[in-house]
């Protein structure tokens, strides 16, 4: 085991952690704003990857990176439309509905794209390696970190500095008041949900070249997201960021050091955090 291998794994861990963060941020946003957990996030992720696969064959990777998330967000809008009668009802119904949507998407993918695992090539100009500190790193991972870093920064900027972000924050703190001010809360909800799903689509399209694209991944991704959200604290965006990086790096190192049982690492982390701090590392205690 050499240092260079470890560093390479850490880099891969950071890149997958960043991507996980995008999806977790989507769930976290929807959860704080609308009090809904979107269980479809994993399915939307893999749908993004499959769309990327199809678009790459027709156009090129850049178009795929832009179009795939938009199509996914459109489907997210449809899901939000289905969710509308359920606002204010028990969380159970919303969970079941998003879970139902996830099942439909996964089977839809199997019907449409077939059961075989799809792969796409890393775009030519990113298939080389980058030299850093005298070591070679695959440049696609750097590309993922840069793009998702930009998206995360954009997310932060949108949230903190724009009118829309202000409305999002206002809805999170007092939904009824925002409605009373004559603002169309239903429309903001739609946008919020679509935005959350769009993030998942971006994640799917970004990951498409380096994973085996398989509809069953949706469940695995959902699992990672759950652990990240629980470790970081359910409604904390900052918590989700650090938790995603921790889980990503732990997973990457684990896959090298303990190839058999590395799938258990996030769960072990999750249980440890829960025992010490049930509300998550960055969550606020209830009451």
């Amino acid at each position, binding site marked *: 085991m050499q240092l260079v291998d470890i560093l390479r794994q850490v880099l891969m861990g950071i890149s997958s952690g960043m991507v996980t963060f995008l999806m977790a941020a989507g769930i976290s946003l929807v*959860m704080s704003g609308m009090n809904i*957990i979107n269980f479809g996030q994993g399915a939307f992720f893999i749908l993004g990857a499959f769309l990327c696969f199809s678009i790459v064959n027709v156009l090129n990777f850049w178009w795929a990176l832009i179009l795939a998330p938009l199509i996914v967000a459109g489907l997210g809008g449809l899901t939000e439309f*289905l969710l509308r*009668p*359920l606002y204010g*009802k*028990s*969380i*159970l*119904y919303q*969970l*079941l*509905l998003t*879970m*139902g*949507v*996830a*099942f*439909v998407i*996964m*089977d*839809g993918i*199997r*019907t449409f794209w077939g059961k075989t695992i799809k792969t796409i090539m890393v775009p030519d100009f990113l298939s080389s390696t980058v030299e850093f500190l005298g070591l070679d790193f695959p440049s696609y991972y750097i590309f993922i970190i840069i793009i998702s870093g930009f998206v995360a920064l954009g997310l932060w900027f949108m949230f903190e500095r724009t009118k829309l972000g202000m409305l999002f924050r206002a809805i999170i703190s007092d939904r009824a008041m925002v409605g009373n001010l004559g603002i169309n809360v239903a429309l903001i909800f739609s946008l919020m949900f679509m935005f959350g799903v769009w993030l998942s689509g971006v994640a799917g399209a970004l990951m498409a070249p380096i994973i085996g694209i398989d509809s069953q991944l949706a*469940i*695995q991704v*959902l*699992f990672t997201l*759950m*652990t990240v*959200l*629980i470790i970081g604290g*359910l409604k904390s965006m900052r918590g989700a960021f650090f938790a995603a990086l921790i889980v990503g790096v732990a997973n990457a190192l684990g896959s090298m050091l303990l190839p*058999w049982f590395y*799938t*258990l690492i996030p*769960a072990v982390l*999750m*249980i440890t955090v*829960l*025992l010490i701090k*049930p*509300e998550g590392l960055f969550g606020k205690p*209830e009451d």
Partner: protein
Amino acid sequence: MLQTLVRNKSIGFGVIAIIVLSGLGIVLPAYWTQLLTRVLIMALFASSLNLQVGYAGMLPLGHSMFLGFGAYSFGLLFIKGDLLLIPALLAALFISIAASTIVGYLCLRGDPMTFGLLHLGFNIFLSTLINKWIRFTGGDSGIMGIPRPSLFSDTLRFYYFVLAAVSICYILMRILIKSPFAKVAQGLRENEERLRFLGVNIRRFQLVLFMISGFFAAVAGILLAMLDKGVFPAYISLTRSAEGLMMCLIGGMSSFLGPSLGAAIVVIISTVTSTYIYQWQGLLGIIIIACVIGFRGGILGGRRTQSKL
């Protein structure tokens, strides 16, 4: 009408139901007897789930893990542990109760949303573990060669065995929900805060309910393993958990027999359609969406339907 009968004359109704079901075993051809056995087992699973969902308003999103606990611990103890049938069965039940205590304790540490997520997290974790740990659990192909009790090995006799086991479980559950214990559970669903002010230790209460619910699910798991003469990862899958919630939803969460009716509908539809289409998961998704949007009370929902849920 069915519901008033259930409420006031539950004993009479239970006796009639058992007689009718016993009669059906003789009348029906073997294929349908087998299907009915499966319906009974899944009805037990759905009812155990409904103890949490319908009575206490909890959100156990990964209940199939207890079905899996029962089935896998029984199967592994019998096949790999070389235990006899009865000791394996008792040990499996013991392990399941212990496991549901641990999982319940860990899940109940946060708010209701965290409970649901963690429950689901454990479910996915265990199903991943079982799929990956091929040497121990057989992975995708499962564990074959689970026996039925020698006295009840053919289809009809096994049907009566399951009918007896499920009836006993139903009677126990019925006693449970008529007890003061269940009144606390309903109070928990309606107004948790008030109960806390009354000095009820909610966590401990929920944990006890969780263990009871997990126990009945494990019984269902063991029966299912005997029915299929094997244990398969589908038992512990997320789909199975969602199916359980759907059974409760279709039949009606606020009634005792609602989930059982839901189980009958889901099992029969899935068996019948699976011969024509292979996308059961997608169909399940569509049914869930339709039920959640248009049909929240369920068939046996009755008048308390829209109270809190």
